């Protein structure tokens, strides 16, 4: 399924992401310019975000249409970010990002959220297979795994790694 931004291949290279880059190294630079440089070189710093999976109309309608139909797959396989965060990180609409939690990782296209729906530092995605891969099995005696408010890191990824459409 090739519905995400076609420009992504031109903007992200193939080399692996940089992990745990020391913060002091970046302090002397303009972060935007630096992220742009890193992105052009095919790398982007690990950024910490809080991920909020939740319901959306599209995901809800998609369930009725069928979990293997396009609407559902699309609804659950995009991560939304504040436009300012995207700008700061040098990410463009549809770029592939690796979202990594303590328990797993997924690679999805990122899109800017409309208006002021999402504050900086937060990510949103519709519940589903991909959000579940980031959840741990521990329920802290409640029966409920922590499914919202998860700490994740973001780094750029190669578009060929996008998990879209690979629902098991």
């Amino acid at each position: 399924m090739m519905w995400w931004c076609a420009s992504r291949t031109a903007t992200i290279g193939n080399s692996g992401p940089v992990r745990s880059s020391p913060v002091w190294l970046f302090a002397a630079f303009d972060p935007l310019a630096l992220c742009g440089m890193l992105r052009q070189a095919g790398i982007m710093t690990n950024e910490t975000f809080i991920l909020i999976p939740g319901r959306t109309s599209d995901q809800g309608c998609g369930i009725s249409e069928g979990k293997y139909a396009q609407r559902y797959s699309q609804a659950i396989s995009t991560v939304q970010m504040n436009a300012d965060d995207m700008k700061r990180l040098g990410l463009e609409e549809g770029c592939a990002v690796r979202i990594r939690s303590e328990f797993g990782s997924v690679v999805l296209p990122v899109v800017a959220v409309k208006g002021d729906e999402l504050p900086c530092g937060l990510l949103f995605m519709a519940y589903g297979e991909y959000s579940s891969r980031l959840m741990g099995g521990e329920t802290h005696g409640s029966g409920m795994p922590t499914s919202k408010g998860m700490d994740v890191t973001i780094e750029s990824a190669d578009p060929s790694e996008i998990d879209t459409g690979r629902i098991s």
Partner: protein
Amino acid sequence: MSRSTDAEATRGGLKIVEDATCTFCGCVCDDIELHVQDDHIVKAKKACVLGTSWFLNHEVEDVPSCRIEGRPASVEEGIERAAKILYEARYPLIYGLSDTTCESQRVAVSIADWIGANLDTTTSVCHGPSGMAFQGVGEVTCSLGEVRNRADLIIFWGSNPAESHPRHFTRYSLMPKGMFVPGGRKDRTCVVIDVRKTKSARAADVFIPIRPRKDFEALWTLRALAAEIEVDLEQVERETGQPLVVWQDLMDRMKAARFGVIFFGMGLTMTRGKHANSEALLALTRDMNRHTRFVCKPNRGHGNVTGADNVVSWRTGFPFGVNLGRGYPRFNPGEYTASDVLANREADAAMIIASDPMANFSQPAREHLKSIPYVALDPKETPTTRAATVAFTVATYGINVAGTAYRMDDVPIPLRPAFDSPHPSDYEILRGIERRVQKWYAAEVRSGRWEV
């Protein structure tokens, strides 16, 4: 089970089903007019976008009613194999149940009782933490009819009904002109508290964005303000993300309301604090009744998840996370809840009814489920049915199957199906399994293996 309905008429060659019930979400709207052509619904008047998608996309699936290890099989063979898997297991899990009728839920509990299974519903990964909190604090509650007729302050906390329960505003909470709120929306104040500015926040008079994972702190700030206890200004702002004046303003509105209601969602139960968040909210609601009339209600998701709580409660004494392995019910969320039973690799067989843990559970839980024999019943193909040892395609409740569903405020509502399905109902499959396990159990008792 009867599939006919007395609220049917014909218009322009179409069958019209009046007052049909939508079971997609916990609003369980029972005022839908369905236009049916042969074996599909062409129009669902009054249904919201989710309800329309639910009705219009449940056509007859052209797939076998049963598959065993991926191969088409007869329903009878499937029932036999399913019963065997469950009966021979040492620690069977029965899970799901929120998208089926109370009649089917009742049979599933009976099977769990006969085989000494661990029984859990999707409540455990939705408002299970609230279910724990109800037992600790109690629930000051009411029906949605009371909210419609009386509530002048409506608070949504960690809940986004504009997307999850689209008719909530118009049918129950914000827009209706009620007996004591004759001006409808004009007579009501709506407050939304959330970590993001959701579509529901746009419908609110007041939106309070709070810091993620700080619901507990915000709720206890309000409890302190309700009791007029002095709080640390700086700490409140640092912890909740909002200055004290914002919380004081909300508390003033809450005290001034004639009838306040807090609808809370999974923004509370799925995040840090879980049942402690729900407990704080229930306690705040209780506190507010020293000042005025205040109630709270969890916004329940799946169509009949409230029915599952009710049926499991009246059959076992507990709402979810019940283990019947010793021949009597034990309740322990965190131990007998499906996520834990699977992630801890305890269950050695399972039956999943109308839910999709292979898509929605954590990775360790999914991996374990994939490694054990299990039975799945669902009207649609899902990741769970695909990986099942025995998978049944069943008729859809409310569309093909009659029965009862509970609205989120515990009001039971009859279902009026639109057309017949060639697939069996899950009730029929479950009754078939129950008959078999009952027969085998009786034979073992007769042979002296079990005492009764």
